[in-house]
């Protein structure tokens, strides 16, 4: 056989082999079902799900496939019935989701908090303030650079509500609306020595990669609750409602809640369980 024929043979064999293996990749062993979960990128990036889901799979033979997108998109996927359950942190949007009939059985899962980060030299002088709105007001007056998510995510909605609460409509060359994920915004704030509102989890995950410090924390308005909601089978009959409920029940069970409390990043606890049964 000529050299050329051999190469062709190898190429074709490769292609066929890829087909057989790859095609088989999508299939699970008979007993295992899958459900699709839409959540936010920050949730996924925190690594919490990587810790929880294998345990759930082992216990209930259900594989949870995670699609991590922005909050708005995650909720949209729920409305469209593209997924079976959503896990997001945007309370008012969640309530609307249920009120409009897209979601069934909303449960509190956990919360973490937001922090205002900034350069160590703190040119605006907000370090240690306990009132987030007041801190933002001072930032606006000092016109030091501030990076905003600008992407309608949970974080962005929180930021927006804080500005609103302070009666400020932020604009000007100091206000940078990035339109990107949390990580990208942290990097940007780091580069520009700017201030930024971030969830603690992503900040901890970035650790030594950035040179920003927590300057404002603890204000209850900075709390960031997470809710898990099953997609309503009345709206989308095809969704795997029962399996989704199995997941939700497990997620709010003492076992999972303890795992959530025990999850640490950078030596610190990241999430605080909210589904404790009384």
């Amino acid at each position, binding site marked *: 056989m000529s050299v050329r024929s051999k*190469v062709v043979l190898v190429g074709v064999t490769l292609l066929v082999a*890829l087909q057989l293996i*790859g095609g088989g990749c999508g299939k699970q062993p008979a007993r295992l079902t899958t459900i699709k979960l839409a959540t936010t990128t920050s949730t996924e990036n925190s690594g919490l799900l990587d810790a929880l889901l294998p345990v759930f799979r082992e216990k209930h033979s259900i594989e949870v496939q995670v699609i991590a997108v922005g909050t708005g998109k995650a909720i949209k996927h729920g409305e*469209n*019935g593209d*997924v079976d359950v959503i896990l997001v942190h945007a309370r008012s949007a969640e309530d609307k989701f249920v009120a409009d009939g897209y979601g069934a059985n909303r449960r509190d899962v956990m919360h973490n908090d937001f922090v205002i980060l900034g350069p160590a030299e703190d040119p605006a002088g907000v370090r240690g303030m306990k009132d987030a709105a007041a801190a933002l007001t001072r930032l606006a007056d000092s016109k030091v650079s501030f990076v905003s998510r600008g992407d309608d995510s949970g974080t962005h909605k929180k930021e927006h509500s804080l500005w609103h609460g302070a009666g400020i409509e932020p604009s000007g060359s100091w206000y940078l609306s990035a339109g*990107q994920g949390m*990580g990208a915004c942290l990097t940007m704030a780091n580069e520009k020595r700017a201030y930024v509102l971030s969830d603690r989890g992503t900040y901890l*995950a*970035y650790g030594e990669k950035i040179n920003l410090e927590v300057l404002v924390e603890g204000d209850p308005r900075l709390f960031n609750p997470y809710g898990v909601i099953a997609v309503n089978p009345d709206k989308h009959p095809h969704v795997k409602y029962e399996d989704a409920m199995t997941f939700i029940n497990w997620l709010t069970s003492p076992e999972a809640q303890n795992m959530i409390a025990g999850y640490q990043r950078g030596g610190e606890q990241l999430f605080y369980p909210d589904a404790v049964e009384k």
Partner: protein
Amino acid sequence: MGESILIGGFWRALILIFTGDVRVYEAAFVSLWISCTATAIASALGLPLGFAVAVRRFRGRGFVITLLNTLLALPTVIVGLFVYTFIRRGTLFGPLDLLFSPGAMIVGQVILALPIAAALGQTAISSLDPAARETALTLGASPGRVILTTAWEARYGLLAAVAAAGGRLIGEVGVSMMLGGNIAHHTRNLTTAIALETSKGEFAVAMALGIILLVLALGLNFLLRRLQGRGEEPA
């Protein structure tokens, strides 16, 4: 810091490869099998289309060629969005449950690569000496055989079309992300993994994945060049 990302990335890449890091190999595998499959399908459909446009005279031929060449610049997110609207629940192909599956990624990538295969295939056949077809005819080849011989004579250009399509697909992220959902173990390929690691600030890992992606793309190109045969460039 820029240089250290590059160098750090390079070292990281070697470590990831030689320790057989599962995530990396999984992502690489997904990239390979999905993009190779999509390239094969797009070529099987697009090359004959390009061939037909090249040899047949018909009204609006010039327009079709221009259209194909324009579609080369299709942004991947547009294709992703387009397919999404047709496969999500409640639409035409909803019941197939394609969204967030490798199948959806393949569909999207085929649509992305089809114009490439067709446009470049058309160019390859058009730039072939018309004497090739005539010679095959006069030597007694049947019409079907004439097509095969013409394609064989133009194989250099046709394989370049396939290589171009494959190169585009293996490096695209818009379609993969939107239609695959970047689901770990299933639809996370190298490009969506790079996007993920970048969003996490894990630049060195992202770089490592990028280097592996480049190596893969190079390898595929090399394979295709070998198929084209050696030293048969026109004088």
